[in-house]
């Protein structure tokens, strides 16, 4: 039945696309567009860096992931379809998983009729910053939790709108069983004429109802708990969020307060009593949750200041209590650290701690003139018991000679509780990382960019040096040679301790119109990969990667 539906939808789209391309221009042929992303990895075992012990390396396997998105708009409707195909993919489980499947990963039909905006199918949306609800796709972490169902939005007037959803969260090519309902009302209030004041308040609600299967599994778990650890679960959970943005001249202030009624979550810090008399770490508990989040920013001429704060308590919000790692997210809690593209600066990234976290961040930027600019960023994250988990001081100075070169240099001081963020028992990592980036433009098309970083630490894998040279022949070619070098390895480093290991990367990418091809030879050290506070530990990789991004 699924194959018949797939064939039907594909025929529908190909018919639309061919008619969109072939019909006479005077007819209302609609618009057709699409995007293809393909990535393939060839695994080449390297025991020296720890790229071994996975089945992929045993037989030099090739894995592929493909996403083909097609869009068609006509007759006041938008149609969207995405075909996903995975072959021996380890994206869902980097620790040797091998996932093969293909099918329709996304579809939607959308129309705006008068004051109504209606979507059926897969829905990506967010309430506030996502603390109570965010459905989104993050391919690198294999997150795709689109709500499959219906979305209805109604414009109450020019400034206010209300929207509601109902559906189930996507998971692979199926759905999670619990039903999710919710909605939000959002508006805009302007100050008096000539006033610099305005605000954008909103209120959202999400309700998740357990299905019978999930409840049966939960009862099976609790039945085997001793009396002291048991509780009576509830079918329903409600999450509320009140949020508001105030603009006043050069100030912008966003606040959000979210509360979740009692929900079953797995608390890894709790202790369970076993029938054997022993204690076991972690258990399911029934508890409410809350998040308070605020950010205030000021911008004036060359000066920009941003302050952020967040308090999180027991705010794990997933489709079922059994979802773990990156599965079954219903929400997204904004991260509280600076996102960096420099390899060593970004080596230790803190995943959002949904069980409990108190975090602050300050970001100050100052542009002295057209040549000089400065940045200082500080962030600190601790448990609710004031045990520090993460602290960063990041500085950057940029000197820009317009049209010729840009030089950026800075220093990062970092403290990172590896035992919390990666694996229990690992130490607190302290690093000092100076870095330098230089971009030189020979002419409008030809440029060379170079990065140099040194990460100094006694913990984890020890100290590193990273160097990168990238030559660009715009708009077609980009050639990159980089090496991450374990210059002062620690006893924990992969391979022999007296061996200073290189992790080279050689990459070539080519752009042709709206198509981008990239081929790279990669040796990648084990580490945490994060996108917006959602992280996972990725094992070392050795091999060849190919990617294609094509828009049409």
């Amino acid at each position, binding site marked *: 039945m699924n194959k018949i539906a797939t064939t039907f939808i594909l025929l529908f789209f190909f018919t639309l696309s061919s008619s969109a391309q072939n019909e006479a221009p005077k007819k209302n042929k609609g618009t057709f567009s699409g995007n293809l992303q393909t990535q393939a990895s060839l695994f080449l075992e390297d025991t020296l860096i720890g790229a071994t012990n996975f089945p992929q390396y045993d037989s030099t396997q090739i894995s592929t992931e493909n996403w083909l998105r097609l869009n068609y708009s006509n007759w006041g409707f938008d149609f969207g379809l995405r075909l996903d195909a995975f072959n021996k993919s380890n994206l869902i489980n980097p620790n040797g998983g091998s996932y093969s499947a293909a099918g329709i990963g996304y579809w939607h039909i959308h129309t705006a009729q008068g004051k109504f905006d209606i979507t059926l199918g897969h829905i990506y949306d967010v309430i506030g910053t996502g603390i109570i609800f965010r459905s989104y796709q993050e391919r690198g972490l294999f997150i795709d939790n689109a709500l499959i169902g219906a979305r209805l939005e109604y414009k109450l007037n020019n400034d206010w709108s209300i929207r509601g959803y109902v559906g189930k969260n996507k998971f*692979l090519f199926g759905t999670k069983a619990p039903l999710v309902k919710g*909605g939000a009302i959002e508006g805009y209030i302007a100050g008096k004429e000539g006033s610099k004041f305005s605000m954008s308040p909103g209120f959202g609600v999400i309700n998740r109802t357990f299905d019978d299967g999930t409840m049966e599994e939960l009862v099976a778990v609790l039945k085997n708990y001793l009396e002291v650890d048991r509780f009576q679960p509830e079918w329903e959970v409600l999450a509320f969020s009140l949020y508001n943005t105030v603009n006043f001249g050069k100030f912008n202030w966003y606040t959000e307060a979210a509360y979740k009624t009692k929900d079953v979550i797995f608390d890894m810090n709790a202790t369970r009593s076993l029938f054997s008399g022993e204690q076991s770490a972690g258990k399911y508990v029934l508890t409410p949750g809350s998040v308070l989040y605020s950010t205030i920013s000021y911008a004036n001429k060359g000066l920009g200041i941003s302050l952020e704060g967040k308090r999180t308590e027991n705010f794990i919000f997933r489709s079922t209590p059994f979802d773990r790692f990156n599965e079954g997210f219903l929400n997204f809690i904004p991260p509280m650290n600076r996102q960096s593209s420099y390899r060593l600066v970004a080596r230790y990234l803190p995943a959002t701690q949904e069980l409990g976290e108190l975090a602050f961040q300050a970001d100050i930027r100052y542009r002295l003139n057209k040549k000089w600019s400065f940045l200082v960023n500080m962030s600190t994250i601790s448990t609710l018991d004031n045990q520090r988990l993460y602290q960063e001081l990041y500085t950057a100075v940029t000197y820009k000679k317009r049209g010729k070169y840009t030089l950026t240099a800075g220093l990062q001081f970092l403290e990172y509780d590896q035992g919390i963020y990666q694996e229990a028992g690992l130490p607190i990592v302290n690093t000092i990382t100076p870095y330098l980036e230089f971009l030189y433009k020979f002419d409008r098309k030809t440029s060379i960019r170079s990065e140099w970083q040194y990460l100094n630490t006694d913990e984890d894998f020890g100290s590193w040096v990273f160097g990168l040279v990238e030559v660009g022949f715009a708009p077609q070619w980009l050639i990159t040679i980089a090496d991450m070098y374990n210059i002062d390895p620690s006893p924990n480093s992969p391979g022999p301790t007296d061996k200073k290991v290189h992790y080279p990367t050689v990459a070539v990418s080519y752009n042709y119109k709206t198509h981008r091809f990239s081929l790279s030879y990669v040796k990648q050290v084990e580490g945490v990969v994060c996108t917006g506070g959602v992280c996972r530990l990725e094992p070392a990789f050795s091999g060849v990667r190919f990617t294609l991004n094509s828009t049409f």
Partner: protein
Amino acid sequence: MKNIFVLFAFSLLMITCKNDPIIIPEFMAPQTDRVVIVEEFTGVRCPNCPKGQRELENLQLRFPGKVVVVGVHSFFLANPLPDSKYDFRTVQAEALNRHLGIAGSKPSAVVNRTEFDLTGVDGLFNGQVDTWAGVVESELEEFSKINLTQGVEYNEATRELSIDVNVITKEDINTKMYINVMITESEIEDPQEDNGVEIEEYEHNHVLREILTTVEGGDDFANSMGQGESITKSFNFTLPPEDGLWRAEHIDVAVFITADIDGERKALQASVAKIIE
């Protein structure tokens, strides 16, 4: 007025009605002749794996005589620690792991080779220790379709081990059946990560040491069996010389029968015996 109606309609969407109170029944051990096989995928570098082992010991107390455990050390987190005397990984353990799929996390348990559907991606693997008891209990709610017995004889002088496995069906089984015979060893003291601390003399139990059939199960066991039919298979194995490992007094023989049922190769019954009582 229209806006009020729309607001009212959206509010209706939020109204929920599933409020039936949930009663957690008291635990009662199922009255059954069934014995489940739990293959636990573990590793000495896995900080949460002792939690899994504690849970399995807990289950063996909770369901006495009904849980057979095999600890499979393979792939990630299983390579020896710097202070390890032994490497518990074996070619067969990794072949078994590959045959069953790869666990997304450790510890992870395969219970009776039955699909685990909580998250939809794990296949046979269940990485959520707290749910193991419920899964085991669920498997024990059925009676076994076969009687499985094993006779073990061990010659201490020659270290030769002979195992006779007998299966008598209690009903017609019209599907292919397979036999799995595994040698495990317990009470091995060697380092283990335990929630951030390296325990130097951690007691490793039920460590898979040898598989006497193919990792897929001996495929020549039976194409089908009628009610009351009996089949006996014999296996011989000579224990390697004792080198800290292979201490006969700590060796068990775990046997289980699998059968192709509804597209899965599920375990019908399991049995364990010490080679020296």
